[in-house]
Structure formats: structure tokens, C-alpha cells
């Protein structure tokens, strides 16, 4: 399994043709207390770089983009009752949705963990 990162602070775990998407620890730290997560419907088509979910923190709503194109196969129901999971466990239990990958070549250009870390350090 490989984990990639976007400049918009999403992470994506790739396992064969499927992937899991969430937001990074840096992102949740910036957003502050999260009170609601709006997830895509199962079967929804999401496109690389386009809106896929919305996180509402106490202060504002922010879009979450899909790191790659694909079809949503699962959404993290736990976030419905417990949106704070995104604050407490952003890169594990606080995942957003799973999808089937339409085009693996879209993964090229995403950052690995070391590249993402130096990207955050530069902000």
C-alpha cells in the first residue's frame, strides 16, 4: 500500500485499484474544531482536483477535493456521529471515502510523505 499527498492537504492510500481518501493532520490543525463532514454518496463520480466533500469547522466550511478521478464505493459513516474523529485521528479513523481508481496515471505528480512534509514546512 502506498500513501500519496496533495498540495490541498488530502491524503490517498492506494491498494490495487481502490483507494481511501482523507485530510492530513496539517489540514485538521488549520481547520480547527470540526463539527460536520459532508461526504459523497456511494456511486458518485468524483474527479481529480474537484469538490468531493465538505468539512465544516466551527469557523467555516471548506471543500475537500478528490486527489484522483474515480467512483465512490464507501463513505466513513463514523464521521456522521463523531466528526471530531477528523481532529483526533485525521490520517486513520477519520478517513472520508473510498473509491475505485479510474486512471492510475493520475497518481503521478502527487507527493510522497517526505515531499509532503517538506511542502508543509515551506508553508
Amino acid at each position, binding site marked *: 500500500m502506498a500513501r500519496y499527498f496533495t498540495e490541498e492537504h488530502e491524503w490517498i492510500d492506494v491498494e490495487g485499484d481502490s483507494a481511501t481518501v482523507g485530510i492530513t493532520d496539517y489540514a485538521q490543525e488549520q481547520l480547527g*474544531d470540526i463539527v460536520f463532514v459532508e461526504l459523497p454518496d456511494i456511486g458518485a463520480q468524483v474527479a481529480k482536483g474537484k469538490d468531493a466533500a465538505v468539512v465544516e469547522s466551527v469557523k467555516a466550511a471548506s471543500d475537500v477535493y478528490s486527489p484522483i478521478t474515480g467512483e465512490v464505493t464507501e463513505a466513513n459513516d463514523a464521521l456522521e456521529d463523531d466528526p471530531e474523529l477528523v481532529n483526533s485521528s485525521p490520517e486513520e479513523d477519520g478517513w472520508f471515502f473510498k473509491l475505485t481508481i479510474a486512471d492510475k496515471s493520475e497518481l503521478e505528480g502527487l507527493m510522497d510523505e517526505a515531499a509532503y512534509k517538506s511542502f508543509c514546512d515551506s508553508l
Partner: protein
Amino acid sequence: MSSDDSEIAEIQTLPLDSWHRAKGGKMVPFAGYEMPIQYAKESGGGIVAEHDWTRSSASLFDVSHMGQLLVTGENAAEALEALVPGAITSLKPGRVRYTLLLNDDGGVLDDLMITNVTEWIEPEEDDDGNVVAEGHWGEPTYYLVVNGATKWDDIAHLREHLPDEVTLTHMDDQALIALQGPNAATALNRVMRGIPENLTFMQSMEHEFGEWKLRITRAGYTGEDGFEISVPAEHAEPLANRLCAEIEVRPAGLGARDSLRLEAGLPLYGHDLNDETDPVSAGLQFALSKKRRETGGYMGHQACAVKLKDGCASTRVGLVLEGRLPAREGALIYDGDTEVGRVTSGGFSPTLAHPVAMAYVGADYSGDGTKLQIEVRGKRLDATVAPMPFVPHRYHRGD
């Protein structure tokens, strides 16, 4: 993930700027200043933590971006009454009044606090103890605290309309620190013994703290008991340190200030009030002094009188939302297919653990208990008109 924090040119810094940064304050541009929206998690910060701490103990807010003005002169009260609907001539020394600057159409230019800070001049005695000059009130002086984002427009408006013999002074070398929460009085009393017991809600006094001249007012913007302390800018940091050294007190930022005032049902200028809303539609009838409703004599009186008599097309209400998804400013409100209003501020209430909002809705839809729907990203959220404050005020009104 994205957010649109837009930057404004020529952002200024506040006297406590480095103090905020040292405490891990996350600085954002607001009202032309770099201000802390929240403090570092490691030191108990975060909007919800700061909000909860204010409701349960006491928080220190830097509100030095607000405009502090003095209006001085023999007819200062009469001159102010020509511009605001509140009774100022009958406002006793040491008393504070919430009022509004209105334009000719009754539109709200700003909401503000006016305090009568006229000084008592002690009697003069000669060496034999004979009174040579009676004690008396000095030159009438009023202290105004106006919103940060509107202070330059307010100053221009006041300069244009106050008569020449009344002097307007912008106290731009003063910082303003708010200490808010149920333990604010306990903490302040330990730093300045005996001060809290001299004041009830909406009273104000001058206090010489060592060599620092402070103005302490029992008021605030959180719905809790608390104080606002005007302090010369160069002493703001040691004062903030003295207050935060008390175990009850932690710093809190703009984020918590906004969620606290929303729960307290207090309107925010530029969102819930603007120059196209009038005091009656805004539900601020209490700021239209009873006597002056008839006698008038202030800018915008005519328009307010018409609204009081004929009613308003729409009015400011509170809304309690079902579920957890907040409705933000600008969200449209429906009764079935009919658009009936718009949210002017909204968010998640940490105290109540559900979303609340302020909105303007048509008069027919403004009754408590009215069921409405708010549209957020194509979804309809169920909401009910509810009385404000959402969280009861706990002001110290005395026994």
C-alpha cells in the same frame, strides 16, 4: 482542502501583537489588524476550548481594534443625542448605554457603547479648611467604544455632524482588554482588590492601578459577566500578563468571541446590522429610548417612527437548526417553496452542541416556533424560530 482567507492591504498590528504570537495565537486579518483567531492547542487553545473556558471560567480577549473616542464639551450630551436614539442627557456619570449611530433613513451606521465619564471635581479648601470652591461636575465628557471595522467612518460621521464647540478625540494610544466569564470578577478582584464590587452591569469607573490610569467597565460581548479595561497601549502587555497569571484566566481569540456572541444573541455589525437595516427590523427597540421615540430630534427618527407604527417587512430572529450542519451567512430560508429570508450569521453552538443562526425573515414567519427550512449546498435543513439569547445571559446586575 481549501479556504479563502483573503488578505487586505496595509494590515496593522495591535499593541499586544507579540504577546499573542508568544501564546501561539493564530493571527488573521480582521478589521484592518492582525488579530488572533485562536491560540495554540498545546496551551488549552482552539475555538471550542476557548469558548467553553469563557462559559465556565474566564477569558481575556484583546479588543484593541475597536475605536475608543471621547466627546467633550458643555453640550456634548445634546450633540450626541442628535445622532443616536438613546437617552444621553439623562445618562448619569459612571453609567453606560448601548446605542446606535443612524443615518437619515434610519439605517444603522454602527452600534456602540456610550459612557458618561464626566469627572467629579473635589471641593477646594484653603489652609484653614474653608471651602473656597464647591465640589462640582467637570466638563461633560462621554467615552464611546465603536466597532473596529467602522471606526474611521464613525469618526468622519461624528466630525461632520458634531457642532464645533464639541471636541472629538480618537484615543488611538489606548488598548482595550475584555475579561469575560463567570470567574472574571474573582480574578479581577485578586489583581485589583475591591474593584468588581463597585460595579454592576453597564457601570464604569476610572481606576489608578499603580501609575496606570485604567477605565474599567462591567460589560462585554459574550453574554457572561465581565469587564472591559481601557489601558494605555504601552501598559497593555503587563496588564494582560497580570490578568492571565490568575488561574481562572486564559486568552481567547476572535473565533470564540464570535461563537459566544452568537449564542448570546448579540448582533455583529456588518453581518446582522448594516446601513440598510433599521433598529426596529433588527429587533433593537430597546435601544430606542421610550421618551425619545416621541420627542425625536435624532437622525433617522422619522424612519424609525414609521417602522414602529407600521411594522417591518422583515425582522431579525434566532433559528435553531436540526442536525449538525451549520448554516452560514447568506444561506436562504424557505417556507416550502417560498423564499422568506436569509441567514446573517450562523454557526455551530459549542454550548448547545447544535447549530444556531441569526436571520432576517418576513414578518409573517418571525413568530417563535415557526418551522422553516434553510438551504445549504442544495440541501434543506429544518430550523425553528427561537427566542434569543440562545444561551441565557449571566450579567451581574447587583442584588
